[in-house]
């Protein structure tokens, strides 16, 4: 830019006399000199060639002017440099007229030169500065437009990009939540399988014993029937019967029988109850819709299915208040409770005291799950609901349990908060809007 402009114009570029003066300015002055009585007047350049002249054309203005003319010459300077002269000739001897006229005209021409030069310099520098500023503005504008375009493109792409990434993230998140639920259910299923297997095992064993007992009873009865058919008398029958009875150990059998049956029935009953709990917990019979839910009952259900996970050393204290029903999807609610209770169980494997309090006040159902675990440090208290945040060792859960609980509770218009003083356990406080 600089090199281009320096060719166009440099402050200080030389001006010639003809750049500074023009005919319209000079000629009237020269003619004025003639009108005041002079014979000829001219403006000569540095090489003594006339630029403008008027009057008698034969006058040469040389010092030894032929034809009896007197000559007066006034030098012209441009920036200190001699650039020409004004010449005046008078045929006659009025020296004073010649001198005076010459002085007046030269003064006028010099004034015009100075004024014009000043104007030109001012205009040039002004134009240059304006042009330059304009070009700098154009350049700045061009650069700004470029960067603006860049940022706009970026912004546009960014929006799409963010949308894509967000969608991908949401998909992954949903998948993870699903996985977490599945893992949670798998965990539950494993425990419950064990729980069912136990009674089922002794029921089966009892049934097998009962089958043997049945065989022995049948044998005794078959003995009686054949003896009766033979017409054997009671007196004859007794010793053989007693012997048979003892061989078949029927005294013991009859004693054992009610116990076996009782055990089996109670075992089957336990299985029935577990299945019922599980059904209730999973709400497998319900349509997956929102409906009025008895929160206390759901907590009970959750604790029931978790029974096998609660070690004998743990104590769960229920302080249930009277609650109105809330509108929610019960299966989800149970899942949330399960995750919170399980969190407490993991926080303190031995000697856990978990107090679950429910109360209703000011239109909301308030649930507090307070444990006596190690508590939550202040600096992580606000992160425990974040996905994948876990303090447990790798492999002991992926840090989604409380996230799922959070999603469920906020999903039914409620809130979940954690309070903790490290060393004094943690409390999870759930508030759920009643009768929504």
């Amino acid at each position: 830019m600089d090199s281009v402009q320096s060719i166009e114009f440099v402050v200080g570029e030389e001006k010639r006399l003809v750049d500074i003066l023009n005919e319209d300015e000079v000629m009237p002055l020269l003619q004025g000199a003639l009108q005041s009585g002079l014979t000829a007047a001219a403006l000569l350049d540095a090489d003594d060639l006339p630029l403008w002249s008027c009057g008698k054309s034969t006058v040469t203005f040389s010092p030894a002017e032929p034809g009896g003319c007197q000559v007066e010459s006034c030098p012209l300077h441009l920036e200190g440099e001699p650039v020409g002269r004004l010449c005046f000739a008078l045929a006659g001897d009025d020296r004073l007229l010649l001198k005076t006229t010459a002085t007046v005209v030269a003064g006028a021409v010099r004034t015009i030169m100075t004024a014009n030069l000043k104007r030109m310099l001012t205009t040039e520098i002004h134009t240059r500065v304006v042009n330059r500023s304009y070009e700098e503005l154009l350049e700045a504008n061009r650069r700004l437009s470029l960067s603006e375009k860049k940022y706009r493109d970026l912004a546009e792409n960014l929006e799409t990009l963010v949308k894509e990434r967000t969608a991908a993230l949401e998909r992954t998140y949903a998948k993870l939540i699903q996985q977490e639920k599945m893992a949670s259910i798998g965990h539950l299923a494993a425990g419950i399988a064990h729980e069912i297997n136990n009674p089922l095992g002794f029921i089966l064993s009892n049934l097998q014993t009962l089958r043997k007992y049945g065989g022995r009873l049948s044998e005794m009865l078959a003995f009686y029937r054949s003896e009766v058919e033979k017409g054997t008398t009671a007196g004859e029958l007794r010793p053989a019967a007693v012997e048979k009875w003892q061989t078949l150990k029927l005294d013991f059998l009859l004693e054992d029988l009610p116990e076996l049956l009782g055990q089996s029935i109670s075992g089957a009953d336990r299985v029935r109850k577990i299945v019922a709990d599980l059904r209730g917990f999973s709400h497998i019979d319900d349509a997956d819709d929102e409906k009025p839910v008895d929160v206390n009952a759901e907590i009970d259900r959750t604790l029931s299915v978790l029974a096998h996970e609660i070690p004998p050393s743990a104590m769960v204290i229920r302080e249930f208040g009277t609650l109105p029903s809330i509108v929610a999807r019960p299966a989800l609610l149970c899942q949330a409770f399960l995750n919170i209770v399980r969190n407490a169980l993991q926080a303190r494997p031995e000697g856990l005291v978990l107090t679950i309090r429910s109360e209703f006040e000011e239109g909301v159902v308030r649930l507090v799950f307070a444990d006596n675990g190690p508590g939550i440090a202040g600096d992580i208290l606000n992160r425990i609901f974040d996905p994948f945040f876990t303090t447990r060792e790798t492999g002991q859960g992926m840090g989604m349990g409380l996230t799922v609980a959070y999603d469920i509770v906020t999903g039914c218009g409620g809130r979940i908060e954690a309070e903790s003083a490290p060393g004094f356990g943690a409390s999870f406080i759930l508030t759920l809007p009643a009768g929504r």
Partner: protein
Amino acid sequence: MIEFDELENRMVLKLVYYGPAMSGKTTNLLQLHDQLGQKGRGDLMVLDTRDDRTIFFDLLPFFFIAPSGLKIKLKVYTVPGQVKHDATRKAVLQRADGVAFIADSQCAESGNNVASFENLETNLALVGQDIGRIPLVVQFNKRDLRDIVAEEEIRRIWDGTGIPVTTASALGGEGVVETFSLLVRSAYEHLDRRYGLAENHGLSGAEFHDQIVHR
């Protein structure tokens, strides 16, 4: 150099008075105009000013002919000192053969001096010149005022730089011609190295100087 027309045997040189606003650049030129002899010196042209502040520039031209017939025109310019006229400063600075930096001696103006000197360095670079190579003279003006930077302090800062430093009270006319004289000599040396003024044009440094700087 503004122009070197070998066909016309003509050299047009440029010296620039640079410096912060109100440091006395125009006053320096006014004093030169008053103090230097009329021979070969043109009229001082003061372009538009507003409230005595230079908007465009001032111009003091000189003209003489070297023994070889080389016509030499020297144009001495001031730049507008105010920060906002930077574009004009750049335009004036272009193709300068030497710079007189007029600093304001008042302690309160030290910051402006530094800023302006940095601006000179930047603008010289922008017009393709190197502050380390261009003939440069620094003048600490306004020595007649109170609360000015002590001369020892000035020496301490500038002596190591190799840049000649003068002091002046331009309003009273003191030190102005001395500064100009230093600058003209320095510019001659620079030009002579490049164009062989003495060898090719029979123009010695003394003559170059005296043609311009004479009472």
